[in-house]
Structure formats: structure tokens, C-alpha cells
């Protein structure tokens, strides 16, 4: 856990910096998910997004996620950074990076982490179109 990190920020995310922040001598692979703003969702054109977080709770939930991943996968360290505020098309909203001695566990853990983050961490996304906006509701 000392090597893990989780953050919420208003600033642009640098995928490479997050992926390479912690590389330990026993590791050989890092799998990174870079999630960013898609222009078209179900044929509708997004103008931009706004993310909002219940920040102290979101950080607690991220910490729990990391603990569960550390218990369930043979991995070494995890970094999760979520951006909030206004994001333009193509800008990164979330980066999850998992390093491990062997790649299989890193792929599994990274995919598990993004799926869990999307259902447990209190962050919401508002899609803004040319003609309106809507808070996206997850699948609880």
C-alpha cells in the first residue's frame, strides 16, 4: 500500500507520468488504462463533459478498491488518478496503472479496478451537447 497512490485533481492528466511514477525492481510490466472523453456516444455528439466528485468519500472508496485489488491479484503497485471539472473531447478523465512482476495479473487487476471504480467511487459525469446537458446515471 505504501507504493500505491490515488488522487483527484482539476488539472490535466499526464498518462506517461502516472504510468511511470513508480517502477519497482521486481516488476516487469505495467498495464495502464487511459479513459478519455469520447466525441460520439450512441451517435450523439458530445460538446464537452463536466465531472463532479464527492471528494473525501471518493478518495476513501479508491483506497478500499486498491486494498481489495492488492488482496485479490499478484500485483506490486497501483496508481489511480481521476480528473474532475470541465473536460474537452479527447482529454483524459481517469488513469489506472498497475505494475506487477508478470503481465497477466496486471491486465486482470487493471480491468477489475476500472469496472469497480465505475460502480463504487462517487464521481458523476455530465454530458453537455449543443442542445442540452444530462447527468449520466451509472448502473447501481
Amino acid at each position, binding site marked *: 500500500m505504501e507504493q500505491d497512490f490515488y488522487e483527484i485533481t482539476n488539472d490535466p492528466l499526464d498518462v506517461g507520468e502516472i504510468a511511470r511514477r513508480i517502477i519497482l525492481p521486481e516488476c516487469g510490466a505495467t498495464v495502464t488504462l487511459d479513459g478519455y472523453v469520447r466525441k460520439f456516444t450512441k451517435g450523439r455528439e458530445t460538446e464537452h463533459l463536466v465531472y463532479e*466528485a*464527492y471528494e473525501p*468519500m471518493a478518495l476513501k472508496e479508491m483506497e478500499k478498491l486498491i486494498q481489495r485489488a492488492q488482496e485479490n491479484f499478484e500485483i506490486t503497485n497501483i496508481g489511480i488518478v481521476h480528473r474532475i471539472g470541465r473536460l474537452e473531447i479527447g482529454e483524459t478523465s481517469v488513469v489506472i496503472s498497475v505494475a506487477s512482476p508478470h503481465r497477466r495479473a496486471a491486465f486482470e487487476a487493471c480491468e477489475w479496478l476500472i469496472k469497480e471504480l465505475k460502480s463504487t*467511487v462517487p464521481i458523476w459525469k455530465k454530458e453537455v451537447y449543443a442542445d442540452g446537458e444530462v447527468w449520466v446515471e*451509472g448502473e447501481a
Partner: protein
Amino acid sequence: MKVKVLFFGATADLTRKRQAEIEITEDAVAANVLEQIFAEFPSLVKHHDKKSLLFSINQEYSSGDEKIKEGDELAIFTAVSGG
């Protein structure tokens, strides 16, 4: 006895508030407070099945039967959609 209730995203838009203070009885559990919030902010239930809203107490998801204390921080919000 007073508690703070926070709203986010859709629930902040519906209540037109980001937070509110509500007065509750001494022996209230989470489910009672939730009903009180729905009574005070009927726009929440006009737009949402009560079951689709999530509720937290002191930044932990609530199961509904926790005892509420003076000064607790509650929050009510829709299913999360980050990532």
C-alpha cells in the same frame, strides 16, 4: 439534533442545493432520515425511484439501519458515473 446533507450532480440540480441542514429526532436511523429528506425535497422522488438513489453517512455507503448522531455528514446521490 442537526445533521448535514450533501447533494451532488443530479440531486444537487433537483434540490437546487449543494447542501442542507435538517433536524432529526434522537433515535433516528438512516432510513428515517432518508424519508425525511424525501419529504423535505420532493423533487428527488418526483424524478427518481427512491431505490435508485444512493445514501452515505460520514462518507461510507449506508445500508439504512445505522443510528444517526448529531453532526453526521449524510449525502444523497444517483448511481455513480465516473471513469
